[in-house]
């Protein structure tokens, strides 16, 4: 079947078979390398996408369910200044997620900071729990998110958090 969907702002017609997962179709048809079909249980978070503005696990969504929706992957936000803030915060706190979860962690932090500009520790832990890759120091990650929020607010409103 053909699924009409907007991916990163471009209208696409994706080929899919019955029972295909959205993550597999996005990877196969569009070659989106930021997505990983890893646990296929919605646990690892490496397949996170924005679907109609909500962050979801694309491994849990049948491809046909995406018909008519608007999908944004990491590739669609990679050049946004908010992502640069997060990258800079990773760098400054020396918290470098591994290459397998890097994009997923950025997606979840991006989502958190766009919903909650000044997140508290519970908000941060809640968000980071979506990508439980054991590669990085959890306390460092929390510090990085706080710093990313500061950098974002400073850039947007020209003031400290």
């Amino acid at each position, binding site marked *: 079947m053909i699924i009409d969907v907007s991916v990163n702002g471009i209208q696409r017609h994706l080929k899919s078979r019955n029972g295909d997962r959205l993550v*597999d179709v996005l990877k196969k048809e569009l070659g989106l390398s930021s997505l*990983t079909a*890893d*646990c*296929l249980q919605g*646990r*690892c978070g490496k397949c996170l996408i924005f679907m109609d503005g909500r962050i979801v696990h694309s491994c849990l969504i049948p491809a046909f369910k995406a018909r008519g929706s608007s999908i944004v992957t990491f590739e669609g936000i990679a050049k946004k200044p908010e992502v640069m803030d997060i990258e800079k915060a990773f760098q400054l706190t*020396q*918290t*470098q997620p*591994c*290459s*397998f*979860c890097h994009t997923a962690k950025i997606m979840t932090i991006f989502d958190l900071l766009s919903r909650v500009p000044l997140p508290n520790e519970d908000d941060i*832990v*809640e968000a*980071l*729990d979506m990508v*439980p*890759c*054991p*590669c*990085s*120091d*959890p*306390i*460092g*990650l929390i510090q990085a998110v706080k710093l990313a929020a500061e950098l974002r607010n400073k850039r947007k409103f020209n003031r400290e958090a």
Partner: protein
Amino acid sequence: MQFASTIRSPYHRGRNAKVIIDTLPNGFSSILPDDLSAHNIPSLFSEGIPIFASQQISYRGEALGLIIGPDPGICDELAALARVECDEEEPEHEWESFSSSQIVFHYGAEHGDLDAMFAAASTQLKEVYRNGIFDHHYSEPMGALARWDKTTLSIHCATQWPDDLRRRLAGALAISESNIVVHPTEMGRALDGRLWFPSLVAAQAAVASRISGKPVRILYTREEDFLHTTKQARSAINIRSGSDEQGRLLALDIVILINLGAYNPLAPEIVYQAVSAITGIYSCPAIRIEAYAIRSNTIPLGAMGSVGATHAFFAIEAHMNNLAQRYSKHPAEIKALNMLKKGQSIFGAPDLSGDIPFNRIHKELEQISDYPRKYASYELVKKRDPGCREGIVRGIALTLGYQTGRSFSECSGMNLYSVEATLDRELRLLIKTQATIGSESLKAMWRKTAAEILSIHEDHVHFLLPENTHSLPSGPMTLSRGSSLIHALIEKTCRNIQKKRFRESLPISATARTRPSKAKTNPEALFLGAQLLDSASWCGTAVEVEIDALTGKPIPLAVWMVIDAGRIVNVQIALASLRASALSALAFCTANDFDPSESGRKDYIADAGMRIRQLPKIEIEFIEPDRNGAAKGIGELPFITIPAAFYSALTQALGLDPRQLPLKGGEILRLLEGA
């Protein structure tokens, strides 16, 4: 490129396996053991591990062949449709009472008059401590990409030990090592899960590529990885001790059984590490140790974190705590009484040239964790409410351990590391090493060290794979074992270049490598003695645990670590690495154990280890991190000390001694109901 899916055995054990495949669609083909013999490809690793099992199936899920084709999804479906027939045999799952044919490796040592010392002992204590199987939870499932270019084989694979991969492939495929180029790919935290198993997957991809004449990629699904790749070994450690009226150890009779599943080429190393660690830091005039690596019909099992030391430290520390209970003494008192002191030795090894920094670490740890007050109050609660009926159930314990960063099985090249550095005319430093550099932070640390010594900009330091890989052998990159050695070698090469820099013209090159030790003739000398302990990193760890009154689940509340490891090159990176390792070590204490039955396998997959949501407070302090001297490895310390401290805290909270790790909530509730 062709994709490959593995045809797996549905039997735990059997002979003469036959794979029956119906007609395959165009473009798809199968690679079976018969194809290997038809192409004159030897099919065994040197330890007898088959690339594809045919004559003997050793575990459920063992690879019997591949389906290759242009679509990975269709390959998966075709592999699942393949039927397997064999002469099924009764699997050997039992390993604690084993037959002689199940022994893969045995090591025994005895020192002192054991019988006389047991006869003189006023108290004897005999206990068995068990460890379960635990997954490494590494970042990406196992996989490999192989490509033949006439006679040269290129392998892309995430491995901790590229040198070993090349050596094994050369042996298994009967080709020269110089015709194999290994490209280590990104790995994340591997925690010893990628020591040798990637070689097997790479060999399967290489064989398929050679037969099909096309590049072949194998990439396991996470479920496949959970169920069919190597995990931390299961162990049972039997300790019988005899002690005098004061609680001083007189005799220790220890039997270590390590279940290594169907295969493990690193059995000697795992056994040696366990033997080296089992005496812990305690002095005893008479010791007998028998250690066995046992084969069973389950998935290949092996190393994790600290190779075999985690199991051994957990057992000896738990035993010392029980000894303290027997004497109604404080655990720290019994431990201090039996602690090795300057001039003492075990197994006739060289004498300890200095005291173990027990007092200093202990004092610091007590201060930051508020241990004495908490220990006393939890003891009081336990005495008032032995069945834990009132709800709040907490415990706290501390333990001392060490990391030597030393491998004992010299024959496999585990201690051989080398680095070549060249400072060129543009003042760029090119560092060549075969060691897999797992993290960017490690690279950053090495870059900083090299740049400081040579007074060049950090951006001018580059890491390369050597063109001639033979000249620069490398042992595995484990948690900190390899990285601390490579760091020392980078320092050495940079200092050599700096010495020559203003006397000779650029480019200047320098090479440094570790020297093989003389351990072969007297392995006991390495187990415990001045050479080992004087160069060790020391760590005291306190863990506070609460038992959830409803579910029985043990919840770690806080972890405190005090580390004496000489100079710390970058405190921030060290802290980050230790905190990440601490979380993995805590996950091991509470995770699901692997059970080969159908329902057990499902439970196992459902368990994803420790989550950031369950993050306890983690506080880490270094003793004099700015001092001069060599940097020592610290990455394994959480795996060595946390399980032992966690278990001891749990026994205090429960007032029971289950003598096993990991422990799940359900098991704890059953124990409490039975108490």
